[in-house]
């Protein structure tokens, strides 16, 4: 009953906000706490919502939400609400010059999520995307482009991709092409995009599959695991990059637990394995960086163990300890806080894809290399590599063909662009020695290189000229002329 009244109050407030006018900024009427701090922090943009749920991106704020702005430590703390005319707002992202905010929003409860942009004071709001489905989690890219998560379909066919468009919404196109329900995490300073997806990237999606972090370039080429540290069960997301290159993210023991948030974990530059910043249980739902030493985190209210609300706290990175309360609204959760401050422009990546190409090429240096086995090298004599794709509708596997594998383990093949592909390593009699489980892709005109079928970013290959490149009949064209249908499931770990 209490929740009913609070929801009603929140709804009434939203109506009041809408009546107040479209110019945006309204000061908070509800009870809120922003303790005084000796430290000075930048102003924050964040999301305030009566209810927060994890899981389906479009259902995170079922009772609506609003994008707010406040400065921690300033008393009294005027919280300014910037999106009163929306039913829900989420995913604030500040432009590189600190002057604008990109966010996703629902105008009405039944409306699709779209991406909007406004000035940091809430003025000059404009709709950026006009997606046929839901578009969320936008991030700024260099050169007046954005990247975001596009969700489409219903029921079992519901899936998400990572898309890119211009700042005016034109030229929207996906940059992920395989199963796994890709979502945007952040844009790294190197210009690459950090995304999350199910692990492994199987055709049959499941809401209970764990998720992990991948990197790819803004043109969709070069998909790679951020770290292949052997985590099989943990679910990772909510990632940010710190100024020193460390990636901080939320980690839960499994996908079910991740529905309620996660604990904080990180992976430093150079480290193969992740380290935990906070111990489970999962009490955090979002992170942002305030300065070199401090995060702003949304954490479950520690004073009320029964509370489902999240409040904003500082988090000291050096001591790995929770700092002071930055903001709390007793009737709502406060999440997704980001500093309203300029931040460095990522490196520009100059794409070298060919717009008219229908294929890409893949060069494997040594297909014996595999982290799936303790020795790091597959046993047996690999004779050929078979390439498969997924045929729609129905996600049926189709063999595109096979290519010779040289004695040094190298192969070089041309494959169709922008479709899911995976590889099977065959013995001399055609038996499957090892099979990749994850579906990946090669972009149009991409020359994709890899060390092996399941290589590690921690090991550079030998300096060796691949024998596959000495052949005059490579790259082997695997354009689908062998149209065998394959029943059954692949073997192998990945």
């Amino acid at each position, binding site marked *: 009953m209490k929740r009913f009244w609070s929801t009603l109050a929140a709804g009434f407030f939203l109506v009041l906000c809408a009546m107040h006018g479209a110019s945006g900024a309204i000061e908070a009427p509800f009870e809120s706490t922003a303790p005084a701090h*000796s*430290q000075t922090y930048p102003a924050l943009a964040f999301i305030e919502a009566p209810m927060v749920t994890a899981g389906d991106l479009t259902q995170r704020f079922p009772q609506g939400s609003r994008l707010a702005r406040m400065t921690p430590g300033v008393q009294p703390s005027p919280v300014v609400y910037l999106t009163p005319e929306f039913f829900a707002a989420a995913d604030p992202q500040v432009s590189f010059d600190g002057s604008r905010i990109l966010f996703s929003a629902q105008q009405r409860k039944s409306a699709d999520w779209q991406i909007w942009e406004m000035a940091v004071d809430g003025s000059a709001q404009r709709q950026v995307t006009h997606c046929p489905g839901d578009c969320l989690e936008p991030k700024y890219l260099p050169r007046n482009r954005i990247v975001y998560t596009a969700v489409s379909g219903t029921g079992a066919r519901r899936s998400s991709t990572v898309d890119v468009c211009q700042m005016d919404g034109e030229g929207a196109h996906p940059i992920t092409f395989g199963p796994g329900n890709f979502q945007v995490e952040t844009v790294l300073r*190197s*210009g690459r995009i950090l995304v999350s997806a199910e692990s492994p990237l199987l055709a049959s999606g499941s809401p209970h599959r764990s998720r992990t972090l991948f990197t790819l*370039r803004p043109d969709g080429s*070069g998909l*790679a695991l951020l*770290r292949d540290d052997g985590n099989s069960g943990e679910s990772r997301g909510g990632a940010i990059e710190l100024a*020193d*290159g*460390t990636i901080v993210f939320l980690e839960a023991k499994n996908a079910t637990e991740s529905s309620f948030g996660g604990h904080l974990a990180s992976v*430093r*530059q*150079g*480290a*193969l394995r992740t380290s935990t910043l906070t111990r489970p249980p999962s009490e955090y739902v979002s992170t942002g960086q305030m*300065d*070199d*030493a*401090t995060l702003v985190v949304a954490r479950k209210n520690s004073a009320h163990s029964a509370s489902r609300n999240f409040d904003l706290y500082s988090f000291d990175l*050096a001591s790995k300890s929770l700092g002071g309360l930055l903001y709390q609204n007793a009737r709502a959760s406060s999440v997704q806080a980001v500093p309203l401050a300029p931040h460095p422009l990522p*490196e*520009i*990546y*100059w794409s*070298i894809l060919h717009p008219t190409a229908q294929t890409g*090429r893949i*060069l494997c*240096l040594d297909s014996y290399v595999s982290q799936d086995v303790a020795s*790091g090298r597959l046993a047996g004599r690999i004779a050929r590599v078979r390439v498969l794709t997924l045929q729609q509708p129905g996600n049926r596997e189709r063999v595109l063909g096979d290519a010779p594998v040289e004695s040094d383990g190298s192969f*070089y093949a041309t494959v169709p662009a922008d479709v899911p592909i995976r590889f099977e390593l065959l013995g001399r009699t055609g038996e499957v020695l090892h099979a990749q489980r994850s579906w990946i892709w090669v972009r149009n005109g991409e*020359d994709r*290189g*890899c*060390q092996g079928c399941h290589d590690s*970013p*921690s*090991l*550079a*290959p*030998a*300096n*060796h*000229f*691949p024998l*596959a*490149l*000495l052949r*005059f009949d*490579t*790259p082997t064209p695997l354009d689908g002329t062998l149209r065998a249908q394959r029943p059954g499931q692949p073997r192998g770990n990945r």
Partner: protein
Amino acid sequence: MKVRSASPAIGGSRPRNPVAGIAAFALVAVMAILVRPSVASAAPQAAGTDSGSYIPRSQYLSPVAMTLSADGRRLYIACEDSDLVLAVDTRTQKVERRVRVGKMPRGIALSPDGKTLYVSNEDSNDVTEIDAETFQVRRTLAVGWGPVGLTTDRDGNVLYVANTLGDDISLVDLKSGREFKRLEAGHYPEYVALSRDGSRVYVANLLARVAPVDRPPVSELTVIDTSRQIVAARVDVPGVIQMRHITELPASAGGYLLVPFMRPKNLNPLVQIQQGWYLTHGLAAIRPAAAASDGPKNYRVAEVLLDDIDRYYADGFGVAATPDGRWALVTASGANVVSVVDSAKLRHLLQNTPPARQQELANRLDSASHFVVDRLLVGRNPTDVLASPDSRFAYIANRMDDTVSVVDLGRMRIASTIDLGGPKEISRQRRGERLFFNASHCHQGQMACATCHPHEGLSDGLAWSLETPQLGRDVVENRTLFGIDGTSPFKWNGKNPNLETQDGPRTAMYIFRSQGFSPKQVNDLVTYIDSLQLPRNPHLTSNGHLTDAQARGRAIFFRDRTADGRLISPLNRCYTCHSPLTHYTSRVSMDVGTATHYDTIHAFDVPQLTGVATRQPYLHNGEALELEDIWTMFNPEDKHGITSDLNKAQLNDLIEFLKTL
């Protein structure tokens, strides 16, 4: 690993109790007086202001080599661009003396008694002997071609000088001042070190041995027995190039020789640079043999990378072990970083890696996180590094900033930065030079221009598998940048009409795989590259006259008729394509029959012949290891000039003439 800057930690900048702050300030002030060397300033050095006006290169100091007095109170610095040697008082951190030496001083050594400095002058092919106290030049000692690294023996009787361009080592009798012996080194010997027991001089060679380009490079650590003054061992260091400074850990820390290197993957297609790991950087850890059992097989060579999985520390240059053996510091001259190695952890890793895993260790990008305890951000292009005798401080020469960073090894932070007094205005050429040595423009910081063009513009001597139009085709030899002004077009296919095209978006897209340079930066870079001059050529006599052999070779080069009197077609005469009017190139592409099945084109840009003696290997793909091979192995149809009628003696004469260009 977080790179730490000179700025104090964030926590230290937060407001505090003002009374406590004043007390702390007073305490720090007292400590600053008591602690030596004094902490002059923790602020990063000034970046300098951009200047549009012309500032001669010689105005900049460019500190590149250092040595320290035995008591640690005087730091001697060779400054290559200004032809100066400076003496800095480490307590006051002021330059107290300076003296002009020969052209381009690049190495410096102190006699065992601390009374005499020896400074190698690369461009004047000599060594300046200086009184270390008065800073008066005593005499100039003639040595070989391009001297860089040098050291005396333990008694101070013999000076060993690595002649970089001559590929040899001069041994100078310091009593008479005369070179009495010259030993063959590897390829481009640069830096040397005397072993702790004085029995050996170690010489690190910058480039790999000249060898077939389809094999991984093998570099050499040349070991000289100081008692017999002979080469005792030529130690293979496989898979690496660009070995530079050498330090020897104390026996208590394992006694390893540590030598920075670059470990390229040039036989893989360049497309792999976008995965990382294409150019890796690390340390060779070489375990010397006991003196009684010398020989290459008695040196155990291990290699470890200093890079992280997704961040590279390009162009290792200086290395120094602290006297207590606890730390080894390695400068990454392309990343402006000093990596601090815990030598006990490194030793533990080396000793606990089974032999079967040693090769893998050389390629592991996660091992540095086990033994590198800190990364310190220093000035631009850090080169040499030294540790103080008490192991409390380290000094780093920042070549492109004209400064020295002082590291407090107790606190593991930059204590101060010594301004050596170079111009504060930064000329266009200097800006370009800074860009040339900076790897931040490449994906993950894997490489700078200088990575493949070491020694300020040289070719690295490797062939590279570029990816266009097809992987594995058109593998091409790297080319030198010395004296290329006026030799356009560029690239072996001659497709780049100027350096702006060569170094602009194409470099960003296909080589660096990152943002690359802005148009203004490209202009700065081109200004610098155009300024790179050929080294002084010792094959020319001082009066400019050719020797008999050179004159005979010249006649062959300019001949119109074969040995039996037949007229040579103009297109088959040496001087037609290698025109003396334009740096001995016609600046067009020619098919001279050198293309292989793996080339997609048959005509290649005619390379200029100026400085050809220093450009091994030869031809577009580096197949010809020696000049003679061009005619005896790769010119079967006389398409590359008529040479089949020349005998061995005539070819030798031709080579003698080409060396003079």
